[in-house]
């Protein structure tokens, strides 16, 4: 199993953040810096997930082999929040390789969701399924929506 050092999320660029260890001191520092998500945001995020994401990405966030990518500790989920929000807004239709497996199904654009809903669902995803990453804000989603 490959091991990667966790890099502070604030300086994270396109570098992978596949985390395996809970005990890394760097990780604790990151967790401390991450803004804790509000409970209401998480509850709303779960609702948005159930209604819009679950049938493809599954209840455990593990996706479907060869088709729908997992949301568990992947660069896409833990990395650049703007990029992540853009995937939700614009959809995703490229074949993507994650941990040696290829996922090829089409993800539709979910731009009918509000910035608040997208912020909530991404915050939920980034703090569930074994993920421990910072919350996504409405401002960040707004930036992703207005950017090209």
């Amino acid at each position, binding site marked *: 199993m490959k091991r990667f050092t966790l890099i502070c999320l604030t300086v994270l660029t396109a570098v992978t953040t596949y985390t395996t260890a809970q005990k890394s001191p760097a990780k604790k520092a990151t967790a401390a810096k991450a803004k804790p998500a509000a409970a209401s945001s998480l509850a709303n995020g779960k609702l948005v997930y159930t209604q819009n994401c679950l*049938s*493809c990405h*599954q209840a*455990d966030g593990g996706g479907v082999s060869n088709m729908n990518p997992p949301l568990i500790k992947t660069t896409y989920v833990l990395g650049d929040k703007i990029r992540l929000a853009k995937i939700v807004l614009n959809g995703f239709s490229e074949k993507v390789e994650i941990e040696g497996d290829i996922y*090829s199904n089409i*993800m*539709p654009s979910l731009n009918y969701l509000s910035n608040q809903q997208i912020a909530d669902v991404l915050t939920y995803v980034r703090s569930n399924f074994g993920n421990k990453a910072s919350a996504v804000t409405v401002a960040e989603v707004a930036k992703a929506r207005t950017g090209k």
Partner: protein
Amino acid sequence: MKSKAVFSSIVPMLAVAGMLWYGSGIKSTSAVTADADNAGLKLPAGFGALRAAENTGKARHISITPAGDIYVKLARPKEGKGVLFLHDTNGDGKMDETQGFGNYGGTGMYIKDGYLYASSNSEVFRYKLNDKQQVIDPNAPEKIVTGLIEKNQHETKSLVLDNAGNIYVNVGAYSNSCQEKDRTPGSMGQKGCPILDSAGGIWQFKADKLNQTYGDGVRYATGLRNVVGLDWNQQNNQLFVMQHGRDQLHDLFPAMYTTQQSAIYPAECMYALKKGDNAGWPYIYYDQDQKKKILAPEYGGDSKKEGMPEAITPAVAFPGHMAPNGLLFYTGSQFPEKYKNGAFIAFHGSWNRAPEPQAGFFVVFQPFKDGKPFGQYEVFADGFTGSPEKTASGRADHKPCGLAQGPDGSLYVSDDVKGTIYRIVYNKK
């Protein structure tokens, strides 16, 4: 004197040859021993199973030679090899020699009249076999078909041959239901679905002509969203296919379908095809409880309105989303009489039933009589996932994919999660 010497040296040679021949004869009977746990499978009384091979890779369709060797098509090449040749050196049923060739992933694998046919996700190749039914030159296949559409979904190209020199290749639709915006809630269907020009059907090509593409072939049947399991029924001399029905009725049209309805509809259909048939995708789907062809919501349907009366009716309709990836008409005589000429179907298992529990992940038997489905299907081999919880979550240890019949009438099942090749045998008392 001279001839006598020659003769005396020939006798022991003949004896050895005879022993070898006799030995190989033993190998091709079903005198193999089932694994103590029947390879983890639950089977009807009298049947047993062994793991003929393990960890082969993402094993899709398989074909068994008359000598009992196994050819396996891998979805993705393993160490650069996309086709595996498995050989059993000591006759215990455990394949202990592996060779590989073909640097492409794919699904199709079929042996017919001295050739091994294999497909990538856009092409079909064939390899000439020698008198031992082994590929002569793994590095020089003939390219039979090229340029088939390969997009993000339903890209695998299953294949089968008839007895008249034709090969049938599935070209799956690169869409769920031909919506203007694929898999987008509320998006309506494209008029005169343009996908059907080059996908969403079965194409027929000549088995021995090189470099054919769409213009050289015939669109044999259309309106089939995606077919993975297919077989040539020797009794009827007819092509049978298993369609993967459309996904996400609830996600896309939540006002018309509950999550429970979306989990079981539409049916996964078996079709008996004739040239020119249209199975109706994307305009209609088959509802196995109403027993009707229902107009798709993308084309004005409301879960009850019927549509497209000219579309063919399925031969058998199974519950939704179980993903039939293998179809095999059993022609052997090892199994009891009721299995003869009936259909085995490998259901890969669902994902699109969520949030309802997933289903499938088993091999079903559909009895046939006089070339037609006769009576209810039954689950034949179950237990691939490892536990009921793993079935419900879809996190299966193994998923059945391809089916093949051995020369002794054993049934082989491939698994494209861990690459186990199962061999199911009948233990006569």
